[in-house]
């Protein structure tokens, strides 16, 4: 049977057996960010969005997605870009196999609830298994991202800089550092 979906904004179609999972379908289309850790709806690694709702692609038939919008991490680079640097900075990932699923669910969380509490984050990401890390790093990274975003937008931040915070503790320092070639001394 021919299944057509809108994959990362592009209409695509391919032959699919009736029992082909959405996981196999998007992988066959080259979306290799989508990983499989359990093939039984237990780990969250295979998360994709169907009409903006996170679903476990290992447990959804490709045919059911016909005519729908399907997004994978390949199509959400910009949205992910906002916070994945924090995961890297925190050294949260080890093997990284779980990362795409976790990032997908974080995007879904932030769309649904732009200002989650730590408890909200824990509850939302509970279905994402990571064998390597112990989750502390991911949680810490997301909370740091949320704090930094808040700081950036708050006036308090501006006035703090205006009051000439010692350079070493000014949050802007790190940001500037990131834009300079590595090794530059500030």
């Amino acid at each position, binding site marked *: 049977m021919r299944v057509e979906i809108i994959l990362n904004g592009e209409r695509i179609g391919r032959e699919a057996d009736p029992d082909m999972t959405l996981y196999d379908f998007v992988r066959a289309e080259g979306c290799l960010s989508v*990983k499989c*850790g359990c093939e*039984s709806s237990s780990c969250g690694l295979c998360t994709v969005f169907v009409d903006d709702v996170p679903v476990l692609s290992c447990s959804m038939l490709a045919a059911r997605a016909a005519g729908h919008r399907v997004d994978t991490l390949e199509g959400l680079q910009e949205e992910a870009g906002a916070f994945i640097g924090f995961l890297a900075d925190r050294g949260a*990932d*080890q*093997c990284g*196999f779980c990362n795409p699923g976790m990032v997908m669910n974080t995007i879904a969380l932030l769309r649904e609830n732009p200002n989650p509490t730590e408890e909200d984050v824990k509850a939302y990401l509970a279905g994402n298994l990571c*064998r390597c890390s112990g989750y502390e790093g991911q949680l810490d990274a997301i909370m740091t991202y949320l704090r930094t975003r808040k700081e950036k937008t708050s006036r308090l931040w501006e006035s703090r800089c205006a009051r000439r915070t010692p350079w070493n503790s000014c949050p802007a320092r790190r940001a500037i550092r990131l834009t300079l070639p590595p090794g530059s001394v500030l």
Partner: protein
Amino acid sequence: MDQNGKRYTQAGQTPPEPSPMDRLVLDRHVRFVGDPVALVVGRTEKACERALPLIRVQYEVLPAVLDMDIALDNPTVIHPEENWEEVPGIGGDRMRNLVSHEESGSGDIDAVLSSCDVVIDRTYRTQACQQAMMETFRSYAEIDAFGRLVITASTQIVFHTRRIVANALHIPEAMIRVRKPRIGGGFGAKQTAVSAVYPAFVTWKLKKPSMIVFSRVESQTASSPRHPMELHVKLGAMKDGTIRGIALHTLSDTGAYGEHGPTTIGLSGHKSIPLYGSAEAFRFTGDCVYTNHMSSGAYRGYGATQGIFAVESAVNELADTLHLDPLAIREKNQVREGMVMPAYFGETAGSCALDRCLESVRRRIDWDENFPVKELGDGKCLAYGIAMAMQGSGISAVDQGSATIKLSDGGFFNLIVGSADMGTGSNTTLSQIAAEVLDVDLARVQCFDADTDISPYDSGSYASSTAYVTGGAVEKAARKLREKILAYGAELLHCDPEGMWGHWK
């Protein structure tokens, strides 16, 4: 290939191999639920699935040994075959279901125990555990333009995999190339060549590419979990808490095959008993036995975990019996820097910060205040307990690492190693070592692992070895290269290489 001629092991260990040669790729005698019966090959996964129900297997059901306690000298012999190859000198006897037998000791342990005020005599059992890395076992194989077998495997043991496949297929190692891409975790599970042999066999026979990806269920049922063990501890001490002697007997269930069996059981004693430097005598005995369970393998701690669980539990029971502080008992008896450790192959503890570590634990978790339990209110509490552990980085005088560093025409460095970053970040660590020695920015070091045709030999990434063993090789290589560059620069600039340092970069 004559499958029956010679057996092999899938354990990834530095030769001479310490695990018995007890496997065939496919054997007529299957020993556990999950043992391969046939290789079904098809163009698609679907085709294979269609073929499966068409295959009829007739089993002659033999009595099974499902409890390690009754395995030794059981009339049911797990490996009756004559071409089972023992590891010389480790006391194995296939007709007794015995993979290895070990006895070691120092001092007169029986005399010491009988003169102690208290003897804690306990038996502990540990379970098999799955490493459960998120990426299951997987490998693919192809024949290259030169007719050689190229295997790409999710593995921690790139070079050992080459040897294992050569042994399994009875082909020369020179005909095999093994590569490791980025992989999704290992935790010791991939220190056994669980998946590589099958596509290698298929591709070598059919001269066509093939691959195998384990499902999660297969990863849980036909893999390489931690050895379950039964540990009998006798711990002798005086009323003031002085530990005078430890006797440990370990029974280890290696399952249907002996992978990592003799070595893990050894560490259950050799990495638990030496923690107590005060002991005047020790005895460690162990039997590693075959059963009809899944074949066990390597898993973080590698036998030490089981031994430490038992000995440390016994020490806590001792503290409880004597009404002493379990942390104080450890401070009193622990091994200290410079002590000879008879139970650790007579080696001297050349570096040991255990005393400072315990002191820091006491302070940082507010032990004196919180032990044994802190009330949190609301019917909840937080219990405090303590255990010590020891771990060495790499296996001394056995494991090897090497590194090649090239200065490329683009002004950056290629660091080529044979270790296996499985998510441990070892490639970053090794690059950092090189960058530090060469005094260049990290971005100018590109690390590559691992390909048996390209990388210099490395025994692989296990036993917490890569940063230490391969890292040592990287440091040496980087120093040599720096010297060469400096000497060349000095020649061009007509100056002393030493004085070149300021111009470096």
